């Protein structure tokens, strides 16, 4: 039940090759089968796996693996390099608007960790960048969502803007921005309700909030335990809203987190932060190389 990492997976194939002392193309093919399985077990989307394996395979059939004395290790190295490159690139920076306040929208499926991450981001903005955020309770649907954000605000000793649950989220966002201007607060973090990417009405609501607030960042919050569906969710949110980055939550668990690769591959948008616990200081920068090792089970 514990899923095998890539190294264990490659062992059988390696034994066979060792006997022959030379790597053939069919050996590489067999190794690629193991790469595919390792990625699927880590929940990387099957379409993303297909593309990825093709790329790694091309590189492997060339010099690197076939000429190597340790082809297994070489395959792992190639896979890890390609994974890291795919997920890496941009720095985990939070944008700042030229005209304050800077607006950040938190969006995603139900239960992904938006509200908690809103609190964590506010904490980080103050601690690391010396900023003054306003938390905005724009989830008027989920029972006690406002109360949840207010409690986090109290824990952080930070202002929370709310108009109750009888006012539209669009109106709440609008008034919140004015409030931030009045009070000279420089960041506005909008906690939106969880919603399905196929819910047109609610997706329209997000578009309206985007329209009026010109957010500097739209963070898609994704549960790191997400399986194959991660591509549908990320692609759809990105197409409809144009997300600027991703926060991957609950990485303090024992999931492999292949969703990270899937999301990056289909949206091209950077994973900026990872959630490492329920507490408000449990937000870390994203490290592509660490994530690559994790996905490969090493």
């Amino acid at each position, binding site marked *: *039940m*514990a*899923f095998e990492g890539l190294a264990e997976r490659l062992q059988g194939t390696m034994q066979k090759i060792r006997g022959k002392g030379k790597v053939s193309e069919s050996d590489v093919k067999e190794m690629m089968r193991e790469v595919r*399985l390792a990625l*699927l*077990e*880590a*929940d990387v*989307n*099957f379409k993303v796996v297909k593309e990825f394996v093709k790329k790694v395979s091309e590189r492997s059939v060339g010099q690197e693996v076939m000429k190597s004395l340790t082809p297994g290790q070489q395959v792992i190295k190639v896979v890890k390099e390609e994974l890291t490159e795919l997920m890496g690139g941009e720095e985990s920076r939070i944008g700042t608007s030229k005209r304050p306040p800077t607006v950040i929208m938190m969006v995603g*499926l*139900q*239960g*992904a*960790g938006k*509200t908690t991450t809103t609190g964590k981001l506010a904490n980080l903005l103050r601690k690391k960048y010396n900023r003054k955020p306003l938390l905005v309770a724009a989830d008027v*649907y*989920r*029972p*006690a*969502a406002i*109360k*949840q*954000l*207010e*409690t*986090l605000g109290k*824990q952080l000793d930070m202002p929370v803007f709310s108009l109750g649950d009888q006012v539209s989220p669009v109106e709440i966002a609008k008034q919140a921005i004015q409030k931030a201007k009045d009070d000279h607060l420089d960041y506005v973090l909008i906690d939106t309700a969880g919603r*399905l*990417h*196929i819910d047109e009405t609610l997706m329209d609501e997000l578009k309206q909030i985007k329209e009026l607030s010109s957010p500097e960042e739209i963070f898609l919050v994704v*549960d790191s*335990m*997400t*399986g*194959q*569906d*991660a591509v*549908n*969710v990320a692609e759809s949110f990105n197409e409809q809203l144009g997300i600027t980055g991703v926060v991957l939550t*609950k990485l*303090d*668990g*024992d*999931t*492999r987190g*292949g*969703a990270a690769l899937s999301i990056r591959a289909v949206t091209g948008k950077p994973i900026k932060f990872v959630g490492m616990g*329920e507490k408000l200081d449990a937000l870390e920068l994203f490290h592509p190389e660490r994530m690559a090792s994790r996905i490969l089970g090493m």
Partner: protein
Amino acid sequence: ARYRKIDEDFFEELEEILIGADVGFDTVMELIDELKMEVKRQNTNDPSAIREIITEKFVDIYSDGQEVQSDLNIQENELTVILFVGVNGVGKTTTIGKLAHKFKADGKKVMLAAGDTFRAGAIDQLEVWGERTGVDVIKQAEGSDPAAVMYDAVRAAKSRGADILLCDTAGRLQNKVNLMNELQKVKRVIEREIPGAPHEVLLVVDATTGQNALVQAKTFKEATDVSGIVLTKLDGTAKGGIVLAIRKELGVPVKFVGLGEKMDDLQPFHAEKYAYGLFAEAFEEKEEKKEEEAGD
């Protein structure tokens, strides 16, 4: 019937559909091997027949030769205690609200125990569900010992003559040893107060979860002897196919599915219906494609 070749491409596509539904590689292979054999045996290449066969094979693997009970273990004329467990954000509290509504409609006296004393707003959230469904909630202050809340709740439910007590717990990741110990303690308190209770321990699993759901089921089962699964958020595009592996490897059946955020969005699990839905899209998509091609 529309003609369509049942060839290697067909099986390969089916493999992808199943993997895309989070069924998991090993289980997919098992399903496809069995399907291939059956197709050969019946010598058919009628897609609608194939659809019947694969649904059947799914149900075969799911039920493993037994009659799988998705009914809850409800005590007649006595208090029934149901404990909800699971990782963070999967839908435990919402499912409790939905079930409270269901039992209430059946004429039962229902009570809720606010055993999540940790997450911000968790108690208030359960209270909103209590108001919506017209059901009492037993709670203590945020930050108090969940085992103590459970002790209170069981006592109150007994003394007030409740039929059903639904116990909420804080979400926790299965690799957090101290939190899993805390959960065991909560369960022990219930056991001590009522022999044979909790009568159900329901693990709530989010349908968007991938292979980690199997690890969740294993660890929560070891800690709390899980008796059933509630598969939530099936109203999205995720299929929750990992429940087949959970059933196969751990023997734990699915009892309910969650289909939305409202009170009525909970249904009993039917393996056949679920399997049919799992393949529906696949087969319908193909038929649509065929029609388009035919139209060109």
